[in-house]
């Protein structure tokens, strides 16, 4: 096994274990922290794939913003942050069966995909990946429309937040 494979297995185990803990732990705040661990594992996988930008954005957006807002909301809203009810619903076996079926189906699809065993060609070190991503985001041939739509959506959210928050005279 190459060191990269060892690191990948470690990351994958971290993601799966933390994701399992998110849904099984009884303390709400622990669930949020396990979610942070899972998201961090995903960032590590991006880093292994040479997608540094994605890795860093994953940490900034998901851990730095979303997870911290989760934790903040949890801390502000629930006094008793422990779940005491039963953790399984009556039809849990049906959900498990469906989950297994979907997993099996996806695995089957992936395995039968032609070229599943091919190794991706290494990115030449002189290719400016982040520069290309930036160009693609503002190029009319690529993603300028979704990019602008997302900007307008965010602007609308910003204006809406100001409108909701401003105190009426």
């Amino acid at each position: 096994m190459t060191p990269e494979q060892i690191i990948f297995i470690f990351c994958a185990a971290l993601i799966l274990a933390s994701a399992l803990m998110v849904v099984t732990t009884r303390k709400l705040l622990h669930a949020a922290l396990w979610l942070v661990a899972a998201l961090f594992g995903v960032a590590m996988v991006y880093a292994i794939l040479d997608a540094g930008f994605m890795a860093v954005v994953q940490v900034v957006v998901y851990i730095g913003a979303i997870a911290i807002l989760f934790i903040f909301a949890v801390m502000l809203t629930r006094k008793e942050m422990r779940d005491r009810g039963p953790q399984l619903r009556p039809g849990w076996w049906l959900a498990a069966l469906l989950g297994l079926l979907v997993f099996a189906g996806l695995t089957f699809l992936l395995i039968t995909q032609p070229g599943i065993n091919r190794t991706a060609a290494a990115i030449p070190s002189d290719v400016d990946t982040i520069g290309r991503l930036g160009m693609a985001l503002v190029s009319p041939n690529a993603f300028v429309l979704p990019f602008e739509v997302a900007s307008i959506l965010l602007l609308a959210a910003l204006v809406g937040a100001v409108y909701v928050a401003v105190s009426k005279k």
Partner: protein
Amino acid sequence: MMFWSDPINFIGAWLHSVFSGWGMSAGPAGTLVAFLGILILIVFALVLDIMLVWVERKVVARFQDRLGPNRIGPFGLIQPFADIIKLIIKEDITPEGADKVVYNIAPVLAATAVILLWAILPIAGTITAVDLNVALLFLVAAGSLGTLAIIMAGWASNNKYALLGAFRMVANMVSYEVPMVVTLLIPAIITGTMSVKGITEFQSGVWLVVLSPLAAVIFTISAIAELGRAPFDLVEAESELTAGFNVEYSGMKFGWFYASELLHSYTFGGFISVLFFGGWQVPFLMADGFHFGSALVALPGIVVTLLQAVSFLVKAMIGYWVIMWVKYSMPRVRIDHMLAFNWKFLTPLSLAVLIVTALMDKLLASTNFYVLGMFLSNVVLAWITIEILRGVGRRQRKAEETALQPAMDAAHH
């Protein structure tokens, strides 16, 4: 590659060949060398951290007209080691009802978030741990891990003061991250790269502080806020929250918070120097020696590397000193003032600087007065800002006066 021209990379290559000689294949040998490099960098940062305890105590003493530690060793230099021994042998207390695992992970995470930043700091031309092409975003990402550590500490302590400190930290971080990210974009626009190595190399002629002095000031202010140091130290406001998020920690766990705060400050001093003051650049020094006009004083690579490393560490220390200077001379601001200062002043100003920089950078791109134009545009922007502030202040004073007028008239009659 020779030892005299590029010492660190030579040692790396030599170790790699030694490990290969022992029968390792190239992959594991490379990983082992990388791990050794990480270990050396972390040890360097932490040993530096020990000395920073001494620097901080000595400097604060001078600001407060005291002598500071001066009993143990020459100039009290051994004091930090005595401090560490004290911290290690103190009783380790976990409060009743604390969330033990989270409580114990928090100081580790706080230190990790700081040490992560050293991965991208370019210490000299040939010494950079990782030359990330998204280094500026990495800086923000590592900062958010630090926030997480403080939230965990505040929540897990099962103490209302600690929790209030954590709440304040989140408000602080979420708001001051905005001007910080915006000012980080300015070096990226001017240099055309987000790699700190590229940004440093760009500054071989003119430092970015000349091209964008306002960005340097805004970055320094938001860095101080992100560090949670005075005047933004509401996280651990002693008079209100006893000690804030770390009130329940004792011994070396508290030590880790303290040490990571100091190292964080020094690291941000390093980032201020890298982004705006040329990092490891020494005036007139190129990779082969000093260039004075056409005269060349040739130097071997090892001397150049050493000079660059010293230059970086000294500039970082100066940045750290400015942060300490602000900390020990300013009173703490109130939380509503702090947030209003950020949202109503710093954020709009940083956005204005960003727009002006982007426009001027394109307009003056191939002209001879690029540097002068960039500098003057910042000066004009600063002047407009001051005029607006003066107008606002005048209106506020007028409003106060007219509000007081009836009361004063009544007093006269």
